[in-house]
């Protein structure tokens, strides 16, 4: 006859258990690793119907631990059984690994054996053991359950008929009265006496009486069965059989077993779930404690190893912040614009040249869009006038000469959102019209190398500096390396926000390229900073202007990113500023709407004007003439551009343009009024 295969317990822990353990460890246990009593529970085995195959799938033979595990006494609903367990929490992973597990296991099995031979108490037949190590910094919990069960030698065997449905052995009214009795007072183990068509449930402590009588055929041994597998009775039956065989050996060579699995009365048409079988053993009565098994095997590897519950994603505050921001952005996509590519925005690495008013507001808005990499570059320190207008600095940052702006801004970004990858570089950008002294040449060359590396490592660059000429080198680098360049500049109550067009070498031959910051100006960048009066040296703007311009620049970038052509996106056709035009599927629209080339804002009129500027082939910033020389000569060319007046004009042919212009002026015959 086949050996009975018992379904082992599978642990099912609820998050509340780990939260409660954490609280207990911090408040009560601290470093103690004394044994505690905890409570788990099991209920009748359940299965679900797989919607796709139509098959019933048995759910595990589960022992459940929840937040109430540490409470005494334990309360369970009907048709569930409370089980006590021995619990030990170790303070280090090493202690957890080297703990004498066999010894602790033996303590539990000794207790169970004594309850059989000395106290004849069936209530202690099902116990468990739980060893844990809680890594509270990482929110990870290592744990190992054991469900000790005595090994019968020889093993119990099931009759050749096998396990069958309970209603093949008992009729509906018998099953119903068993159900009602168990529902009113749930017992893990019980005896059923059949008299004619009736069935009566008796507690296991009446076993003496039952087994003393001479008609074992009308006695059925029942247990609340957490297993749902048709041919595998649940684990608690093992120790019950050991109990019966030890105490009533002559009456239990063959035992009729009812595996109770009906948590509710079956609804019309459905069968009873309980199972019935006859098991037999050729064994003698046990006089010494049998060996026991029951350490839980890892569910995926089936090896005897501990398990780990990783609660970091939902308990680590940094991960929670991460998730909240992510959810917020996803909601925007689900509710408003399903085709929004949020991942593309998040992975766009942004380099911000300038960490002043524009830089701070751009960084903030980028974080709102979920951008994960923001790098800031600035050469100055936080000064006392900064915090009120630059929202990444506060008063303390101004003291002692002031913290370097770029690094300070990056730190503040991390304080706002720990998941941000923010870095700050203290770097000066060389500018045409500001000759580089020989003593600084080496340092400047290193700075330029770093700047070039930063350009290579980022996808979008924001030019947010406070002078015109400082934007020259970044314009050249951005054009050469085909990066997205956003430019924002402030006047007192006016601003310009624009995106640079792609370089000619990267564009289709007849494509109408868009210009850069210098394309519309036929003047090469020169020194505009020296000899200015105080009010001209710092750009004094209406305070509301910078946030408007900064957020406009970010939204322009995001709209650009959503356009299939990216940096080559064409500007909107003229007069396309009404709502109707935005709806239409124009080639110049992204899912977010227009992707203008330039936006000029006039705060005095609360007006914004989209402008399109074509690229100028003689531009000192983005023409192929300039870029090619830079690519060939590198730093040497930059040096000349900064040191030599007129170098860029000659390079681009602007000098000839001036001569032509002067000549044209000269040749005009001004009529003098008489």
């Amino acid at each position: 006859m086949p050996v009975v295969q018992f379904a082992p317990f599978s642990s099912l822990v609820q998050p509340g258990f780990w939260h409660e353990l954490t609280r207990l460890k911090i408040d009560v246990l601290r470093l103690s690793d004394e044994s505690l009593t905890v409570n788990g529970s099991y209920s009748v085995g359940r299965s679900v119907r797989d919607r796709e195959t139509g098959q019933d799938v048995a759910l595990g033979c589960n022992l459940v631990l929840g937040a109430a595990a540490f409470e005494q006494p334990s309360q369970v609903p009907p048709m569930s059984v409370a089980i006590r367990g021995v619990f030990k929490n170790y303070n280090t992973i090493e202690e957890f690994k080297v703990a004498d597990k066999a010894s602790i296991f033996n303590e539990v099995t000794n207790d169970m054996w004594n309850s059989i031979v000395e106290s004849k108490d069936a209530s202690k037949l099902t116990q468990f053991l739980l060893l844990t190590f809680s890594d509270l910094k990482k929110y990870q919990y290592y744990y190992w359950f054991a469900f000790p069960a005595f090994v019968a030698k020889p093993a119990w065997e099931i009759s050749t008929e096998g396990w069958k449905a309970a209603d093949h052995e008992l009729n509906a009214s018998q099953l119903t009265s068993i159900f009602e009795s168990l529902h009113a007072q749930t017992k893990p183990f019980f005896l059923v006496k059949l008299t004619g068509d009736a069935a009566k449930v008796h507690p296991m402590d009446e076993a003496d009486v039952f087994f003393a009588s001479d008609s074992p055929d009308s006695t059925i041994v029942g247990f609340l069965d957490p297993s749902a597998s048709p041919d595998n009775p649940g684990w608690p039956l093992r120790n019950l059989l050991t109990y019966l065989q030890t105490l009533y050996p002559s009456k239990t060579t063959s035992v009729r077993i009812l595996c109770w699995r009906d948590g509710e009365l079956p609804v019309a048409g459905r069968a009873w779930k309980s199972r019935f079988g006859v098991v037999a053993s050729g064994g003698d009565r046990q006089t010494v404690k049998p060996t026991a098994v029951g350490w839980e095997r890892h569910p995926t590897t089936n090896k005897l190893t501990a398990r780990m519950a990783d609660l970091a994603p939902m308990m680590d505050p940094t991960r929670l912040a991460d998730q909240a921001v992510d959810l917020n952005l996803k909601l925007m996509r689900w509710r408003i614009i399903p085709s929004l590519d949020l991942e593309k925005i998040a992975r766009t690495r942004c380099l911000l040249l300038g960490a002043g008013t524009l830089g701070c507001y751009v960084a903030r808005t980028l974080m709102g869009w979920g951008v994960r990499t923001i790098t800031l570059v600035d050469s100055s320190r936080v000064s006392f006038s900064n915090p009120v207008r630059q929202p990444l600095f506060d008063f303390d940052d101004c003291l002692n000469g002031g913290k370097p702006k770029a690094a300070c801004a990056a730190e503040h970004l991390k304080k706002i959102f720990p998941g941000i990858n923010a870095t700050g570089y203290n770097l000066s950008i060389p500018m045409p019209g500001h000759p580089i002294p020989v003593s600084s040449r080496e340092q400047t060359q290193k700075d330029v190398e770093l700047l070039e590396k930063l350009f290579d490592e980022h996808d979008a660059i924001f030019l947010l500096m406070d002078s015109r000429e400082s934007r020259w080198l970044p314009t050249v680098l951005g054009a050469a390396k085909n990066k997205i360049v956003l430019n924002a500049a402030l006047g007192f109550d006016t601003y310009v926000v624009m995106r640079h067009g792609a370089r000619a070498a990267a564009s289709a031959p007849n494509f109408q390229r868009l210009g850069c910051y210098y394309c519309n100006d036929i003047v090469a960048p020169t020194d505009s900073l020296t000899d200015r009066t105080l009010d001209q040296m710092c750009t004094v703007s209406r305070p509301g202007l910078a946030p408007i311009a900064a957020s406009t620049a970010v939204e322009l970038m995001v709209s650009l990113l959503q356009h299939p052509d990216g940096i080559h996106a064409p500007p909107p056709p003229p007069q396309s500023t009404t709502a109707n035009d935005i709806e239409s599927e124009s080639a110049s629209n992204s899912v977010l709407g227009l992707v203008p080339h330039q936006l000029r804002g006039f705060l005095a009129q609360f007006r914004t004007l989209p402008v399109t500027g074509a690229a100028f082939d003689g531009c000192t910033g983005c023409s192929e003439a300039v870029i090619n020389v830079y690519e060939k000569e590198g730093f040497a060319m930059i040096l000349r551009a900064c040191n030599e007046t007129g170098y860029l004009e000659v390079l681009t042919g602007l000098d000839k343009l001036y001569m032509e212009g002067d000549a044209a002026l000269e040749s005009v015959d001004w009529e003098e009024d008489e």
Partner: protein
Amino acid sequence: MEESSLESVDNASAAATTLAGGVLCHQYVVLSPTFKVPTFYFSVHDFSGAPLTLTEVLQLPLFRRDAFEGAQVTTFSVQQSSASFPLLSFGDHPALNVHCWYLHPCGTSAAVEEILDAADADEEQRHLRWLEAWFTLLSSLLDLRG
């Protein structure tokens, strides 16, 4: 951390039937004190007690396959597509003090009223009809079959 010598293989133990990738989902219907409408809360964790992350939650069969594509709901939703997905939010269960996901109730009242107006419900049965309509609304997003 394997300790294969801890116990010998026992031929009376069946293989454990833990479903790979099984999760436990608790679902609740709670009255929102602010919005005075029923709100659907749920929490879901794996068998080791680790709650699922947002990415894993979105893959649950609990959500209908088209739930996140901005698909239009049925005829009763005459609002713009902005109302097609109730806000999935994360917060505390009002009574049980556990972290839960929930469908934000702010748009519920309006959406249910749409259904009721269209169905021409009689006054006596209004509360029952209200709840039925609420479940209809919910099941356009969630697959609540057991």
